């Protein structure tokens, strides 16, 4: 409870600082609308079906991207983690691809995939792959040989060991990877919506609010909502991890 109270005090302090800064003459007028204004606008926007459809579009695209990233990265991680030959063969390529920022791939993705939601989902998948892939490989490295020996003594074959021992034992790491990937996917999603391609989504809403009417309060509403989605994703996945993986 004390931690919770301290958290509230922290948030209140942050909002007070923001309010002061927003009303101070240090910043140009309307550059940073104070929270009192932003939260008023937030309430207005939350009742607007147009805004809600932007939010839904982004959340849905993020969830799809996470799903695709899991479907690609977990099996790949299992193969790379359990077959050293494949891992050595792909190491150089992976080390090259991994540090490329997704945003740098926007032009390429636009040319290849056009302006539809495929582009932003593909780029988010690209960014979300790595934490899941590396956590899966790492988890297999950490697999206790005694667990494998135990299962082999009890007549479990290679494939059985992979699915009945390696995969469940990797699950905690994999779920942590997914949680990290979810945040990354959200960041990339909003960035791509902001910069290119999209006609809908939270990033698009933010961009439109700034470049059209110059409504900084709406820009900040978009920002606050993006942050809230991030917190919800992170906490939700952490909760799932704790529930499924109690050991």
């Amino acid at each position, binding site marked *: 409870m004390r931690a919770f109270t301290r958290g509230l005090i922290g948030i209140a302090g942050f909002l007070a600082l923001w309010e002061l800064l927003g009303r101070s003459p240090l910043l140009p007028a309307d550059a940073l609308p104070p929270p009192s204004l932003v939260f008023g606008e937030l309430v207005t926007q939350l009742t607007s079906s147009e805004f809600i459809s932007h939010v839904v579009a982004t959340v849905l695209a993020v969830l799809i991207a996470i799903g695709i990233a899991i479907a690609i990265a977990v099996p790949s991680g299992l193969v790379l983690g359990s077959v050293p030959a494949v891992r050595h063969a792909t190491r150089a390529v992976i080390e090259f691809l991994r540090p490329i920022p997704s945003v740098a791939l926007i032009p390429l993705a636009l040319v290849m995939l056009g302006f539809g939601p495929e582009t932003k989902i593909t780029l988010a998948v690209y960014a979300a792959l790595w934490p899941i892939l590396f956590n899966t490989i790492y988890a297999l490295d950490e697999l206790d040989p*005694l*667990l494998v*020996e135990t299962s*082999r003594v009890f*007549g479990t074959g290679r494939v059985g060991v992979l699915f009945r021992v390696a995969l469940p034992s990797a699950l905690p790491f994999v779920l942590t990877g997914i949680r990290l990937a979810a945040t990354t996917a959200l960041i990339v999603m909003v960035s791509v919506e902001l910069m290119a391609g999209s006609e809908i989504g939270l990033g698009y809403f933010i961009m439109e609010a700034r470049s059209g009417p110059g409504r900084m309060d709406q820009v900040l509403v978009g920002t606050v909502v993006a942050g809230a989605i991030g917190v919800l994703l992170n906490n939700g996945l952490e909760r799932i991890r704790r529930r499924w993986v*109690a*050991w």
Partner: protein
Amino acid sequence: MSNMLEVADLGHTYGDYEAIGGLTFTVRAGELVCVVGPSGCGKSTLLRTISGLITPSRGDVSLKGSHLAVVFQDYQRSLFPWLTVQGNVEFPLRSLPRAERRARAAEALEWVGLGKAAKKRPWQLSGGMQQRVAIARALAYRPALLLMDEPFASVDAQTRFELEDLLLRVRREHDTTVLVVTHDIDESVYLGDRILVLSNSPARLVADLDVPLPAERDQVTTRTDEAFVALRSKVARLLNVGKPSIDVEKWAAAERESLSETVPS
């Protein structure tokens, strides 16, 4: 009595290092045999070759029956933390129908006195209870041979006595053939019908001793029995306990020499 396990001229070499140097012995049906040897003498290698985890460099291991089960020393790392106690015991029984799997796991848990802990996770139990889960898992598999690798070396003394008696009880009740690998002389005499004494590496058979004690054993009276004490001393002598090894004597000689050089006379 028929032989459950026959080991013939079993040898294993890792590179240049010879861990086992040609072992021949048998374990008869229903017998509890203890293998005792100095630490690092290749006991684990022996266990791993018998269980099929490694293929021996030479020799033969033949088991009468389709499969064996192993109880490892490190119960914490040998139980699957994501499965319940019940799930762990059912693990080897995957080929059976669900209902039979359930029934056999429940039965095995009853044997080790853990009927009430079936729904728990292994890590919620004490060390001794975890090792009992591992024993139940091995028993539920109905192995031709139960192999145990230092099974009670990681629990406290009290629990160790309890588990030893539990092992003696279940193997008597279910006529299980057991091979226990241990470095503990007292334990080998207390548990065994027979004791195989191994030499330092490469492990060779030094002696194959019958244990002249009644089948019913008791932690207090058996351990003070004259036959127990006599056999324990015999095994200890065979293992060279208390005598400095050749290496130690060499070091001592070298040390004396270096001292006589530096001390001014």
